[in-house]
């Protein structure tokens, strides 16, 4: 069975929010739209975003790390948001594993958002229905798009290409290879939800320079050495008899 997912590379994410607004832009006019905004030009604006970037600091100055952490629905293999839904609005597709909400069936009871350990469901206060990341279901399944564009909007937008998309059940897919080779990990596996989305950790590159590497025989300073003239004075040539 296919399980589509994102692998997000925290090693290169600079927190630019391209994924946040490209998602909003595609989806608000798409199948899962609109993504409404409350008080768009007034105090305390807030609205529906399927994808958000959170920024954290770890450590104490000067040993500080700053992390940008994009977060959207993880399309769990065993999603706790599905069985709690009283109307069947919340469902997981059998063909590709994407977790979706049917707004026509949703009664806005929010059980699903209480059940989700990751806080990625987005309640539309205007329409009173629950919304969430669809992995751009209306792009990835649209056969009228060229194959190179049958990807979530966030994946196409991401300038650092920190978002890899594919089938985690296919061992040869880019996502599976990335998870396997680069230490990809799921969020909070202890909940048993088997999140499909994975994250790649920070990796550090260092350079080790040994002291004897500093100086080489061709050190240009040698070129500047002045010829050492013998000290004036007598030599054996002068005094030997």
């Amino acid at each position, binding site marked *: 069975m296919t399980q589509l997912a994102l692998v997000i590379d925290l090693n290169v994410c*600079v927190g630019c929010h391209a994924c946040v*607004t*490209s998602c909003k832009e595609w989806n608000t006019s798409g199948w899962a739209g609109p993504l409404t905004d409350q008080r768009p*030009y007034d*105090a305390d604006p807030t609205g529906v975003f399927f994808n958000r970037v959170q920024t954290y600091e770890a450590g104490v100055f000067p040993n500080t790390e700053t992390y940008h952490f994009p977060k959207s629905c993880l399309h769990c293999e065993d999603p706790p948001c599905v069985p709690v839904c009283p109307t069947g609005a919340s469902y997981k597709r059998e063909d590709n594993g994407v977790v979706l909400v049917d707004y026509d069936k949703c009664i806005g009871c929010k059980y699903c958002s209480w059940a989700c350990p990751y806080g990625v469901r987005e309640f539309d206060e205007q329409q009173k229905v629950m919304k969430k990341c669809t992995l751009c279901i209306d792009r990835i399944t649209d056969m009228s798009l060229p194959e190179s564009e049958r990807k979530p909007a966030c994946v196409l937008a991401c300038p650092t290409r920190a978002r890899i998309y594919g089938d985690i059940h296919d061992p040869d897919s880019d996502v599976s290879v990335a998870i396997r080779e680069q230490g990809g990990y799921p969020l909070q596996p202890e909940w048993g939800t088997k999140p499909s989305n994975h994250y790649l950790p920070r990796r550090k590159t260092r350079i080790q*320079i040994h002291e004897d590497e500093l100086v080489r025989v061709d*050190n*240009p300073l040698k070129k500047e050495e002045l010829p050492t003239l013998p000290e004036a004075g007598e030599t054996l040539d002068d005094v030997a008899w």
Partner: protein
Amino acid sequence: MQDPTSRSDSDQGRVEVKETTCYMCACRCGIRVTLRDGEIRHIEGNPDHPLNKGAICAKGSSGIMKQYSPARLTKPLLRKQGAERGSSEFEEISWEHAFELIEGRLSKIRAEDPKKFALFTGRDQMQALTGMFAKQFGTPNYSAHGGFCSVNMAAGMIYTIGGSFWEFGGPDLERAKLFIMIGTAEDHHSNPLKIALADFKRRGGRFISINPVRTGYSAIADEWVPIKPGTDGALIMAITHELIKQGLYDRDFLIKYTNSAELVVDDPSRDDHGLFRRFEMHVEEGCFDPENKLWWDIDLDREISTHTPGVDPRLMGEFKLEDGTSVKPAFQLLKDRVEEYTPEWAAHITGIPADTIRRLAHEMGVVARDQKIELPIQWTDSWGNDHDSVIGNPVAFHSMRGLAAHSNGFQSIRALAILMTLLGTIDRPGGFRHKAPFPRPIPPCPKPPKGPEAVQPNTPLDGMPLGWPSKPDDLFVDEDGEAVRLDKAFSWEYPLSVHGLMHNAITNAWRGDPYKIDTMLLFMANMAWNSSMNTENVRKMLTDKDENGEYKIPFLIVADAFQSETVAFADLVLPDTTYLERHDAMSMLDRPISEFDGPVDSVRIPVVPPRGDCKPFQEVLIELGSRLGLPAFVKEDGSRKFRDYPDFVVNYETSPGSGIGFLAGWRGKGGEKFLKGDPNPRQWEMYKENGCVYHYELPKSYQYMRSWNRGYLEWARAHSMTRYAEPITIHLYSEVLQRFRLAAQGKWPGRIPPERLRKRVEENFDPLPFYSAPLEHKLVDTHTYPLNALTQRPMAMYHSWDSQNAWLRQIHTHNYLFVNPRTAEASGFGDGDWIWVESPINKVRCMARFSEAVEPGTVWTWNAIGKAAGSWGLSPKANESQKGFLLNHVISEELPPCEAGDHMSNSDPVTGQAAWFDVRVRIYPAEANEPEVTSPQFKPQKKLPGQDPKRGKWQAFVAGAFRKKAKIQE
């Protein structure tokens, strides 16, 4: 709901796809805009565009919300009779009325004294046109935003290596192995840098970030080296000290391609002290560096002409020429200079441990030396030597405003360019690479006017409003050596102010120093808010009146697409279009989007019709140029020459028959030529057919070592990109600067600085970089004001543009002052508390946010999120004005009175770069009874005629149905 897999978005409504160029920041990425029933459905990166390769950022993806923003201006507006300036009381007028008003005013000024008209523009991307308009009008009072942005970066590097970062050149991360980013905010460059940085990291490159703050790009650095603001020069020179001490420099590169081995007169008693010793030879007058200089031959132990085949010259030592002149190689002078700049010395200044400084130097030096790249590319140098390969020392740097926005920035950046040169990384694989039309001569050829006589009634300006002085005689000063320009650019106060000093234009105009002006035209420059320093007082100047009750700045015209803070102060408002509604040319005559591998320029083509009565500013200038009869805009009989801006772009030539116009691609009658060729009537169509971008890829042998690459230089001359094919020797030692110093010492035969400025010029025009604390740190009490305060721009916003954007303002709704917890603890406040930030000139109340990602001597905030109440189409209660704040209120545009003058700009004394980041502050908690809103507050701006009526409490954007629902006027 319908099954999502059984529908296609392309079946929803009438779909059109158009290509153009983004303008949500200055990157200029290629975009593809999909329309549904005439409304924007989505904007995506153009995968075939050389700049962004399909990527798009948060801003670019939010273009819809800019297009349909309630801050849009749609009608020309005139301040109501009797209404006070700044009160936002306007009436709608017709464009014809607006043009008549301007024409009447400007034709009178032009006939009497053209310099009483001042034109200043923001990040306009059309300086080729705005600058030309000013020159044609005859006023020298023109500049764009470079003076308060990063002119130090442009000037410091162009005066050293003939190129600079960003639009002019950049780090070759495709081949670099070590990358050092020093003093870079998140916005210069945006997408191209993100793309390159991520690929660089994936390939295993090592990335070091040197910055007082760890955000954005620095977050993914392998190592973060926190540094105290304004001390970068000290760090760079200590690294240089260590590199020279260890012999970790590229001797071969320095000898062949820089002036390191050239002999400098070393005799303070002589008038030519500090100049290169030149021998007699016929030299054609030009703006290149003639090769009549000397080396010291190691083998013969005597002087010899530079670049004599087979000669190995000395870099170090002191010598006597045959005629008895004492000389030293330039490199020896650099070595002497950095002798005292030890890592231990710098550790104290920068806050970086000496061992770390040494290690940084060793990493740079050893990687450059031992991990060389050799590409099998044949090329021939300027002296006729054939090379079988191109060598690269894979250490790359990037830097921007963190170095630039200090009063010692020019010399710090000179030091950086020299460090990059010592490592042998200039225009080589894995190092720094130029972008066309760079490299250019050091300095480039265009010069400012020479004196007041260059400004004559009804006559174009004699000289360029902005140019590149190479000697004191190139300055734009009167008989007393004082400024002719309103902003005092190119005077002895800021001799190399190659981008002008827009940040002092309003203060100077208000004070009438050096003279009063009549009309100021501001184009998309938010001078009543985030583009001014000392903002609260600048706002007062804009409304200040003289003893006759007349405004001290008599007439203010503001052209903008949005209801900025500055619009409120206009007498006349001209509504501009958005980037999706107009033609634009990102011209080779301005700052194109060239790649390392060759020239690139691009255009915008409208994807939607303009809203209301708004009109592209270019059309306004063409119309005014025609009405005023400016020579470039009219035929010989005085009739209009160009129908509109697209017609101008196609048919304008820099001089009749020159073949050089605004666009480089598809020139010639049939589009068969590039860079130079006859106007092509189908040029716009050809750009349109090609994704709105023209990219000429140079042959590989012309892509590297271009400053000394004979093939490239001759190609560049043949295509009129340069006037000379002479080698562009790197100015490790700057004779240009020494000429100004000699003038200050009374040893220069030409112009000399006024007495009050002699010491300042002598000190700062040092031909070798030096470290000196920022001016403000020396002039204010740093015990009372112990902290540095910085701003940087978040990646999701650009300038002041994006608080109007319903999506982006949800990412950054208001800003905090980020403070290290240790600093906050010492000041007695907690995370999230209201505090005061106070400098010697003003104070601001804001909220504090603890951060371990900032060095304890620095506080910082995101710039341009804080807004004046009621501006930018926001409710007066919006977070941006109630909790958001503008740090500019505490930054002075002038220095405290000093020997050089009472009203010196708070700027670099060489370039006039605004020293935003020099500001010193103290912080303390607000009283418990104080209101929990930011201070200062301003009377809320009113909505303007033609702006959308109040938007609803919620909105749902669905393309094809939005404007009607939201009652947005067409």
